[in-house]
Structures are given as structure tokens and as C-alpha cells.
């Protein structure tokens, strides 16, 4: 825990300086309030420059961008299984994030960066498992 806090402190210093940018925790869970295999929360709204720390609360998960579900100019990321990952979102827009092994079970979330982030046309038109699509739709409804 000490290491994580220290690193988080390092990150916020290194990345954001005194700008007031925030780091939000998202837990990767086998079971959460909305069912099994979830990111919690499943929708996070950020200002550009804020970060998400994906916390490996349960084992066997990772966080990675879903192909075709990130803003123009943003870089895809791919976390390792079982490991914490902190990502800073500088590019405004909508990001779809999944856990690779539990994608088919609907382990997905939405990151909205910027005040007026809305789903671009075709955001949900790629190949998405049914359960994942339902949860993405639910998350988008919360925008």
C-alpha cells in the first residue's frame, strides 16, 4: 500500500505538477454492484489531463482501450493482467475500455474526457459482445 501511495504521489507530481489534475480510482472486480466482472465505476468523467488508476482489486483483469473506441489522436493503451495501471487522458472525447479476458462477459467501461464528450457516430458499431454492448449503452446513458 505504501508503495502504491508513494507512486501515486510521484505520478501526480510528475504528470500534473500543481495544475490540480485529479486521479480517479477504478476497481477491476470479479463481482460488483452491477454484476460480475465489472469496472467500478463503469463511467468516469474527467477533465483533460486527469488520470485513472485502474486498481487490480481482484486478480485476472487488465484495462485496455477497445479498438475503434478512442478519440482521434489518442493513443491506445494496454495494461498487464493483475497489475495496476495509471493512465492520463489528455485527449478530449470518449474512450471505451475493456478487460481482455472478460470482454465477452461484459467487463467494459466508458471514460468521458471534457465537458461536452458525447459518443461519436458508430461508437458502438464495431464487433462488440452483447453483454459488453449493454453495459456500454448503460454507461453512455449516464453521460
Amino acid at each position, binding site marked *: 500500500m*505504501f*508503495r*502504491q501511495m*508513494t*507512486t501515486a*504521489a*510521484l*505520478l501526480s*507530481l*510528475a*504528470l500534473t505538477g500543481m495544475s490540480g489534475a485529479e486521479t480517479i480510482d477504478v476497481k477491476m472486480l*470479479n463481482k460488483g454492484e452491477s454484476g460480475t466482472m465489472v469496472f467500478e465505476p463503469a463511467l468516469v468523467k474527467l477533465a483533460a489531463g486527469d488520470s485513472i488508476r485502474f486498481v487490480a482489486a481482484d*486478480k*485476472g483483469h487488465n484495462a485496455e482501450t477497445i*479498438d*475503434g473506441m*478512442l478519440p482521434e*489522436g*489518442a*493513443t491506445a*493503451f*494496454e*495494461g*498487464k*493482467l*493483475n*497489475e*495496476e*495501471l*495509471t*493512465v*492520463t*487522458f*489528455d*485527449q478530449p472525447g470518449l474512450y471505451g475500455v475493456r478487460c*481482455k*479476458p*472478460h*470482454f*465477452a*462477459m461484459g467487463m467494459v467501461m466508458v471514460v468521458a474526457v471534457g465537458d461536452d464528450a458525447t459518443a461519436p457516430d458508430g461508437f458502438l458499431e464495431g*464487433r*462488440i*459482445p*452483447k*453483454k459488453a454492448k449493454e453495459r456500454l449503452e448503460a454507461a453512455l446513458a449516464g453521460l
Partner: protein
Amino acid sequence: MTKLITQGPGMASRRSVLQGSLLAAGAAALGAGMAQARAPRGPMPMPARIPERLVQVQADAIAKAPPADLTGYTRVKQELVAPPFAPVHEQVATGGPKIIEVYMETQERLMKIDEDTGAEIWALTYNGSVPGPLIIAHEGDYVELTLRNPADSVFEHNIDFHASTGALGGGALTHVFPGEEAVLRWKATKPGVFTYHCAPGGEMIPYHVCHGMNGTMMVLPRDGLKDGQGNPLRYDEIAYIGEQDYYLPKNEDGSYKTYTAAGEDYADSLEAMRGLIPTHSVFNGAVGALTGDKALRSKVGNTVLMIHNQANRDTRPHLIGGHGNFVWEAGSFNDAPATNYETWLIRGGSSGAAMYTFEQPGVYAYVNHNLIEAVLLGATAHFVVEGDWNNALMEQVVAPRTFET
């Protein structure tokens, strides 16, 4: 540009560099706090992904292609059966070429691997068995597979037929999420025995293959099998054997871990697989699946075609007390079979076939002749053969007795 920082070992080099520089910057600011950061373990390749651009090239080409001309083909259904058995089929094709319809369902199920130790796995299967069912066609036929993934599955699945041509063996055209089905038709242009297996992408490929998702597709020459002189070779029965290497995660005390659902072992399995040493190498899914009461049955004078699939790892079948009279070691029926082999090599990622005619009754052990794997890891099957003993071939001249010193 999205920046990212990772904790923990084993990130790709670009990220490690990024991490290093950021942490160094942090260290300058915080001094001793830097000591808490772990050094990266060094670059580790990220799973290969096929770029979207290339996938699109294929999709565009497919969209432009004219439909196949299927006139003259007859549709037939092939009812698949669980191994070690073969579906009803002809050895020599009668009539014109066929479109052979087969149906497979991806099933994720808890399977006992070893009754003695209680070792079990949430197997990923085609139609519930390890290996998946044997499919048989003749050269020039089409195989038309409906692949269905039940809605309550954990994983996406697909199928790569080594016997087929294009689109990653059909893998690119058969990705099915839970609740989906796809239909793939491909022409069997090359006679032989070939592996098929699931290949959903990246680390999922070895994970699915090492959880049982593989089997054999047999494409017979239209006029049947032949020896090196062109004489017909016919079999009375097929013994379809899939050898499966499992890499079961263990607890600290050496016992096997148990899981409550398919996929829960994902991270542990990948870690165990990295060691490349299987905890089990078994025939047809479990230790003893083809021994004792479940032994294969035959009789003197019968000819058996032994089909051996190993989708992942080299193996070396040997029939103790018999031979491979005719062996298509690498699986191609266009090649003349080798004769009278004692042991033959099945390359990882392939199927091979060997034909033998039983000449003596009794028990024959069919093993992976790395005997450690046969005996300690489970790669043993038995043939129990009925018939009359032939003393002209072998005779016990003196039964064991004590001798004078």
C-alpha cells in the same frame, strides 16, 4: 497524445522508458521516495494483434469476390461423435463432390483430468470433448461448419482449420461472441489429417488451445488411402486420439488450484504456461480416458487407423507390441506412407496417422514414447485385442523360473 505510466514489471520497452523517465523526474522532486519504485524486468513482447488496416484489406477483397459456383455439389449432414470414435463416412467417395454440413458448439465445462489427484480444468471445447470431434471429408468436398457459442459462455471463440486455405484458416471469419453463431464453408483441397483449433487472438490462442480447444480434420483422397505402390489401404476402425498438454496452476503446497468458473484461471494459466512444462499430457482429455475399462477394443486381423492430434507440442506415439505399418507422419495423404515405424513424430500443431493390423491378441499400450510423459503425465492408451495367439510369431519358450547358481 495520451500518456501512460505503468507500475510493475514486464512492460514493453517504450513504456519502460517512459516509466523510467517519469519516475526519475519524481525522484528528483521527492528524493528518497524513489527507492520504492521497482525496476522493470525488461521488455516483454506484447501479444501480436493484426492491424485493423490489414483486416479491412481482407474484408474489402471478400466484399468484391464473386460467389462460389456450387453447382453439382450434393449437401449432406455429418453427425459428429465424441472421440475416440469417427463419424460415419466412406473410405472411397461415391458420387460427386459434396457439401458436408457439420455443427459444433463451443462448450466451456469443468473436466476432471485425474481422478487420483483431483486435478481439474475448466476446459474450452468443441462439442464438449477434448479433443474436439473428428470431421471427415474427401478431397474436393466442401466443409460447411456452423459454429455456435452459447449465450452463457465466458469467452469469444473461433476456429482455424489447418486443412483450409485463407483468412487464418477460417479463424478470421468465425469469431463468435457468446450468443452468436457463424457459418464457414471451405474447400478441402489437400488430402491428409490436419489440426483445427481455436485462435481468438493474442494470449487467448495458447490459452484456448491448452484448455482443450483442438481436434482433427481428415480429408481422404476420393479413391481412398494407398500405399507407396498405389495399392489400396483400408481400415476396419479408427482410433482418434488427441493428446492434450495441460498447465495447471498450483498452490504453494503443490496442490492444484481450483476455480469456480471458466476463465477464472486465466492469469494463473498464462503464468504456468510460460514455464513450458505441462503438468499433464493426456489422451482424450483425462488420465485414463482410454485405459482399463475404457480401453480401445479390436480383434486379430482388424486394421486400425490411429489418428493422433497434438495442436501445441511435439509428441512421439508408439504402439507397444505393434508397429506403424503405414505411417503418414506429417499427415499428408499425398505422400507415400512410411512403413513399419516403431515410433513416429507428431509435430506440435499437426495431426498424423498410422495404420496397423493386429496379429496377436492381448493388451497393447499406445503411448507417447517419452515415457515420462506416458507414465507420469498420463499419455497412455490401451488396445484390448481379442483373437488367437500365434506361436509362430512369438512364444514363451520358458516361463519365468528360478535358476541354479
